[in-house]
């Protein structure tokens, strides 16, 4: 018996995305595409005030409008014990307020109507009487003795939420005391919004006959939601089904449970009819959880020769009115303690204090793997600040301080064990590709002519793949992930995973993993996820965790199948399985390459001709508990030109060398990097959410909140190095967030570099043209 090696297109192939034909033809199925029989529509009355007492809600006019079935208020929910819900961070959050609103655009009441348009008309007829209260807008004043209390419901009568720290304070102080040089920098990483193309929404559908609740929901974590819904509502978990269909971008913003989901569910429970709720763009931008909003004060101790020694960081975290971030439970500040970055320091100490303000919830992990963006921005800016203070080249300072390749696995001063890395190789590659030396010469010439050009570097280390069960859980549920594979008799397969794609390409990359491991052509493998009735339990997709967790589970499950397949192969080839080897994606008899069977042959035999001591069928499940996180990294170099007449910053070149270990699909990785770089450029140059002193949001639509388009996006030049993860079954690391994390400081560093001869040492992001212009004017460097 002999078989041709099949064409697999497994690991390392740029397989075109299986999901794209339906997306490109407009045949995706997003929540708003679903229409269920008898479906009702919900719209939400929102608060114009950031802080106010609710005196009265009069719904009579709304209820009088034909087609309006109900107006739900906090009092109604309170009677059912549902006016509040738990957040993922051990806080609680209002579903609908009973007596007070705590941020502008907060949900105040919900209208249920037979038509979407009637619901929209009815919300304008709900009369709410407010008594405005002074809001807390400045987090620095939140803990003043006379600050108004944002959350009087709590036992602790303070706006301080928690204090968190990592590292060794005493050891750090000691290094600082003896340091030759200390540089200090305050940084504000502004509040931004994920702004997915698809806003949030759901259809809650309760079947009163069989008592089953089905919720179609824009969620990145369907299983966790099912468990939370069961615990909060008391509905048994097998009677709840969460379906997360095609998702138009999540980026962390679709991890939390929003009040709208719960209210729609209550409405469906009451009416026994499906209730649809879809946010509009302004609601999404004003009320859904925000990201970043860290006020950071950082110091770096070093020797005069540029050797970095210790880092000391104090941070004020503006969490808005509820701590509704979606971090692992033990990490209120996420993985911010990765802040020592790619550098070998003797000591570090990091503190974060969370406070409440009258703003929507903050702290959503927007493509940042839990606060890594803030950490990377801080350390990468500080390295440049040090280089500038010592008149050293920022590339040299980095090379001097990198954790050496031979030091891995490396234990960081804040307690992480970096799995693998080769930082000098990545930076060298980036410098060669962009001709760093040539650029520095060009810059010197231009400076002599009065032209402004800057070069910025960011050599970041990411931390992704939460995570090992000894440390990582969400509400007690450990952060493993899962895969279930069934190989059909004719040699095709279905793969179900516990993670949930929102554009990452799981249907393609997970099929490639199985293709590689089982020797089945990628086109014969279907990947499903997002339906809690069929997919194995998992914690979902965020924080670049899919490949490190569920990707590993998929490889392990496939290997379990291969082990069984080997026995069947022995049976078919009439040899002992021990005499077989897996070569060229098939089993062949050792020393007799002519005798082999493919997985396709074996799959058929698994149902038609299996040995006595082997069960029929060919399937496996794996729940993978990763031994460690993975630590992707990269070296980015950005070149900017500044218009002296306008202060406009133009990115002329951007070279991104990324290392995410072994690559499953290079095209998809490239796509992730391109998108991530654009999303990293956005807060560096364009995006920020701000509020006035009364608590009014100032960017409540896409005219004012500046999302970049293809026109603002430079040509990204990507490249890679490959340093496999030693503990991941495929040697892979996550990559989805590397670029968002690594790009902003490269851009900020480039702008500061362009202006450094004018005495500029720092600029907070977003770097607006008027910030730059004011500097130029002040130094007589503006175009006359």
């Amino acid at each position, binding site marked *: 018996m002999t078989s041709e090696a099949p064409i697999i297109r497994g690991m390392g192939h740029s397989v075109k995305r299986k999901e794209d034909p339906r997306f490109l033809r407009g045949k995706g199925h997003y929540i708003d595409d679903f229409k269920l029989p008898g479906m009702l529509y919900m719209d939400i009355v929102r608060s114009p005030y950031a802080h106010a007492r609710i005196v009265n809600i009069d719904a009579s006019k709304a209820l009088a409008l034909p087609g309006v079935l109900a107006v739900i208020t906090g009092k109604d929910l309170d009677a059912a014990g549902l006016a509040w819900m738990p957040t993922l961070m051990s806080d609680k959050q209002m579903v609908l307020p009973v007596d007070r609103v705590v941020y502008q655009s907060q949900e105040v009441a919900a209208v249920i109507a037979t038509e*979407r*348009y009637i619901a*929209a*008309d009815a919300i*304008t007829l709900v009369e709410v009487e407010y008594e405005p209260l002074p809001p807390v807008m400045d987090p620095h004043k939140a803990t003043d003795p006379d600050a108004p209390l944002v959350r009087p419901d709590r036992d602790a009568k303070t706006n301080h939420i928690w204090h968190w720290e990592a590292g060794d304070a005493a050891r750090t102080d000691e290094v600082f005391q003896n340091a030759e040089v200390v540089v200090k920098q305050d940084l504000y990483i502004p509040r931004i919004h994920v702004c997915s193309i698809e806003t949030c929404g759901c259809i809650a559908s309760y079947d009163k006959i069989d008592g089953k609740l089905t919720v179609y929901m824009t969620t990145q974590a369907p299983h966790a939601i099912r468990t939370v819904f069961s615990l909060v509502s008391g509905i048994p978990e097998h009677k709840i089904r969460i379906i997360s269909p095609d998702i138009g971008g999540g980026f962390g913003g679709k991890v939390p449970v929003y009040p709208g989901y719960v209210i729609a569910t209550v409405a469906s429970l009451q009416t026994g009819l499906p209730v649809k709720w879809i946010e*509009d*763009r*302004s609601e999404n931008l004003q009320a859904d959880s925000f990201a970043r909003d860290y006020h950071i004060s950082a110091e770096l101790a070093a020797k005069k020769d540029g050797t970095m020694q210790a880092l000391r960081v104090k941070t004020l975290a503006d969490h808005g009115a509820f701590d509704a971030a979606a971090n692992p439970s033990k990490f209120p500040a996420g993985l911010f303690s990765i802040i020592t970055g790619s550098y070998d320091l003797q000591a570090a100490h990091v503190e974060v204090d969370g406070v409440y303000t009258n703003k929507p919830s903050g702290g959503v992990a927007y493509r940042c793997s839990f606060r890594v963006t803030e950490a990377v921005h801080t350390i990468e800016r500080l390295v440049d600040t040090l280089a500038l203070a010592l008149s050293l080249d920022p590339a040299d300072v980095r090379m001097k301080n990198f954790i050496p390749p031979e030091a891995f696995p490396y234990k960081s001063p804040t307690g992480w064990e970096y799995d693998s890395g080769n930082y000098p190789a990545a930076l060298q590659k980036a410098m060669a590709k962009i001709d760093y030396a040539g650029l520095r010469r060009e810059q010197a010439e231009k400076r002599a002519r009065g032209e402004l050009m800057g070069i910025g570097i960011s050599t970041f280390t990411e931390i992704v793949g939460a995570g090992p069960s000894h440390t990582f859980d969400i509400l007690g549920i450990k952060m493993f992930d899962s895969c279930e594979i069934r190989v059909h008799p004719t040699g095709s397969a279905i793969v179900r995973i516990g993670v949930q794609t929102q554009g990452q390409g799981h249907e393609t990359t997970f099929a490639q993993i199985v293709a590689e491991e089982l020797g089945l052509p990628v086109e014969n493998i279907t990947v499903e996820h997002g339906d809690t009735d069929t997919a194995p339990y998992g914690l979902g997709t965020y924080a670049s965790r899919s490949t490190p967790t569920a990707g590993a589970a998929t490889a392990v499950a496939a290997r379990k199948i291969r082990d069984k397949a080997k026995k069947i192969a022995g049976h078919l080839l009439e040899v002992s399985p021990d005499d077989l080897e897996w070569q060229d994606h098939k089993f062949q008899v050792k020393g007799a390459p002519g005798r082999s069977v493919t997985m396709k042959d074996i799959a058929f035999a698994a149902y038609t001709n299996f040995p006595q001591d082997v069960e029929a069928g060919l399937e496996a499940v794996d729940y993978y508990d990763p031994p460690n996180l993975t630590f992707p990294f990269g070296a980015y170099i950005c070149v900017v030109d500044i218009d002296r*007449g*306008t*202060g*406009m910053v133009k990115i002329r070149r951007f070279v991104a060398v990324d290392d995410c270990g072994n690559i499953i699909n290079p095209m998809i990785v490239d796509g992730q990097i391109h998108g991530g770089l654009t999303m990293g450029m956005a807060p560096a*140059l*364009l995006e920020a959410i701000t509020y006035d002193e009364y608590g009014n949001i*100032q*960017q409540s*639509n896409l*005219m*004012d909140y*500046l*999302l*970049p*388009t293809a*026109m*603002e996006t430079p040509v990204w030049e990507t490249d890679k190095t490959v340093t496999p993860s030693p503990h991941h079954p495929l040697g892979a690391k996550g990559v989805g967030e590397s670029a968002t994390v690594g790009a902003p400081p490269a851009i900020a560093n480039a702008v500061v570099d362009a202006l450094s001869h004018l005495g500029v040492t720092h600029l907070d992001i977003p770097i*607006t*043209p*008027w910030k730059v*212009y*004011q500097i130029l*004017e002040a130094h007589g460097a*503006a*175009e*006359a």
Partner: protein
Amino acid sequence: MIPEDFTYFAPGSLPEVWDLLRQHPDDAKILAGGQSLIPLMKFRLATPAYLIDLRKVPGLDTLAERDGALVIGAMVREAATEHSQLIQRRYPGIHEASAVVADPLVRNFATIGGNIAHADPANDHPAMLLALRASVVAHGPNGQRTIPLDDFLVDTMETSLAPDEVLTEIHVPQPAPRSGSTYLKLERKVGDYAIAAVGVQITLDGDVCTQAGIGLTNVGPKAVRATQAEMFLTGKQPTEDVIREAARLAAAAAQPVSDLHGPEDYKRAMIRTLTARALREATQRARAGGVSA
């Protein structure tokens, strides 16, 4: 994002439009491309009970030179002016203004007529057309009248159009030989309204400027004509010093307010930068022979 209830009409003639305007004097609105009006309605900032769409009214789509003027019909879309050979060749300022209005999707619908009639100081065409000394034709049941754009634009979202009048045409005087026009817009991203923008036309005789037009976008309650700067340039050679002084005068004419598009000082400075650059470019174009026939 869902407008209030409204009734939609698409009449087939101007008299029918006038009738509808007369029947609903307080709560009817004319609809052109809808790219300003529909968003306002979706936010419920505008709540007209009746929409009168001009799309079926004949004769509003002229785009041609006639009797010494370029005639732009009220329903000519931005995309049409952006891609018109005539406009690109002879009215580069209009071409450049059209090309920076919003994005291609919006430009496929939006009209220049609506862009002016909306009287939003952030819109790009009013300033360019001020520089070109354009006028508009208002057509009502009692006949038509020609209104210089300076008089047409009254205040923010306010024009001198009577309640039963329709803007039917825009007239732009044909540029004299050795004229050059340009529109320069400073925006943080494509599709954004201007931080500031400047439209300029320069006409030269020999090397002396015989006529100058300068209009400013988004730095006042309506599009601003930089009269002092225009007067200063007229009769002078547009040397670098003259251009700088004119730019300074234009900046002085601006009345910006601080907002998300930038602080007041910055916007004023940008008018100076943009005016200087636009004057250099327009002079260059005029010297290069200006517009060809």
